[in-house]
């Protein structure tokens, strides 16, 4: 087994373990910490594929900013240990088959397209950050700008909704 493969399986186990722990932890802060572990494991996987920029941004944006916000809100609300109720029937009868179906579809799709994925990964290794910038700001500049516009609209919407009612 090559070193890359060992590191891959270690990181993958960390990501899956973190995700399971996220669901099974009773306390919101522990769940949030598990999610941070998942984010960092994913960043490690990106690094393994040679996408250094994406890995760093993954940690800065998801591991740093977004999860800090999550932790901040949980601390601000002082959320305690969640109460467990009986599992809903719908989750048992519909959720588990649907989850299995999703996993098998994804696995099937990924195994079919694995050649294409490897080919694209091999071409982008020379200057990954520059190649990424070229893709974002030249080839896909309109979708990129549209997405940022969409996020801006969402931010404005959030501000309007969160604003206190002013007396007219």
């Amino acid at each position, binding site marked *: 087994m090559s070193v890359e493969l060992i590191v891959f399986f270690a990181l993958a186990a960390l990501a899956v373990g973190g995700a399971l722990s996220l669901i099974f932890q009773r306390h919101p802060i522990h769940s949030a*910490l598990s999610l941070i572990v998942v984010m960092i494991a994913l960043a490690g996987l990106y690094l393994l594929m040679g996408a250094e920029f994406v*890995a760093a941004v993954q940690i800065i944006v998801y591991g740093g*900013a977004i999860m800090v916000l999550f932790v901040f809100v949980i601390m601000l609300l002082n959320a305690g240990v969640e109460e467990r109720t009986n599992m809903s029937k719908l989750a048992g009868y519909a959720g588990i088959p649907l989850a299995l179906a999703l996993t098998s579809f994804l696995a099937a799709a990924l195994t079919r397209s694995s050649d294409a994925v490897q080919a694209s990964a091999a071409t982008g290794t020379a200057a990954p950050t520059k190649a990424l910038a070229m893709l974002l700001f030249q080839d896909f500049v309109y979708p990129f700008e549209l997405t940022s516009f969409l996020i801006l609209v969402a931010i404005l919407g959030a501000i309007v909704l969160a604003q206190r009612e002013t007396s007219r």
Partner: protein
Amino acid sequence: MIDFLNAHAELLINLVKTALLLFIVLTVNAYLTWFERKVVAHMQSRWGPHRVGPHGLLQPLADGVKFLFKEDPTPAGVDKFVYYMAPLLALALALTSIAVIPFGPDPIRVFGRDIYLGITDLNIGILALFAITALGVYGVALAGWSSNSKYPLLGGLRSSAQMISYELALTMSVVGVLLMAGSFSLRDIIANQQNTPGLFGWHGIFSWNIFAGPFPQILGFLCFFVAAIAETNRVPFDLPEAESELVAGFHTEYASFKFAMFFIAEYTSMITVSALCSILFFGGWLSPFPAAWTFTHYLPSIILIPFGFWVIWDGIRYETVFGRIILPGIGTAMAAVGIALLLFPTVNEFIQAPFWLLSKILVFLFIYVWMRGTLPRLRYDQLMDFGWKLLLPVSLANVVITAGAILWWGKP
């Protein structure tokens, strides 16, 4: 044995370098506390540490021993796992961030292998640093939360809000430098400042990013430095541990070595930020003088020899016998190093780059202490207003103007 060494040379070199850097950083940390207490004391017309060793020089050692041997109670009702993890996390991340910083351009050749100063050279260096500092906030926030006490919780809350607000400005203020260098690697950023003709076409200090065209990064530097001070939780942005409001903030419930870990983490971050300021804006290890002025290469000796003799002269008149032995010893060592540098020109040439980088780091550390001695703490709403309404717009404007200037006049 030799085969084994050859096969694992890279790993061994890195291990030795890591251990050495760790030792140096921790020692510097200890003496940084002494430096800070001394400087602040003299600013307030006091003597500062004076009893333990000559001029209080053994005070850091005494503090270290005290931290190790104090009782280490765990308060009731804490979240054990998170409570123990928080100081570890803070310290580990702070120490990791130093690994990215390069300390000199030229390698040392040992047994036919080039050994560079600095542990690793990532081509996403600056991004990796930001990623590590972005995670650093969890140490403080989780310490506050897990302590099961109201003042630490308030400290943790303040710290996470502060981090979110200032990280944007911190990252945006560096973009101007990145645009000028065209690289994320710290080595490339310094190399880019070497030959650019700066203001009036002069080299040396005018080639540094803070002065060099097309758009001098003065605004970028000010934003970066202010945001970085906020990120390291130092005065005037030390609201997470404001002692007059929150007892001791996030580390109120920590004692003994767990408290020391937060302390070391804070001082290590100060060193990292000082190094980053020097590298990004002040030319890193580049000399402020033009390359033609070779006589400036004697500057380390010119500083070390008189200072060494002054320490000897001061030491022989010291009031305690211990001081009369130890201080002249230190002075002799300093003067000897200065004279050795004069006698071995190759060593002197090699030491120029680290000498300038370390001098710049020392200047920024002094500014940190200076600010602690002079500035009052901000109020919380002032802190938020300052971050969002001033720092962020200014750093964004800096990005736009720098990008426009590079587009118009071309890269320097």
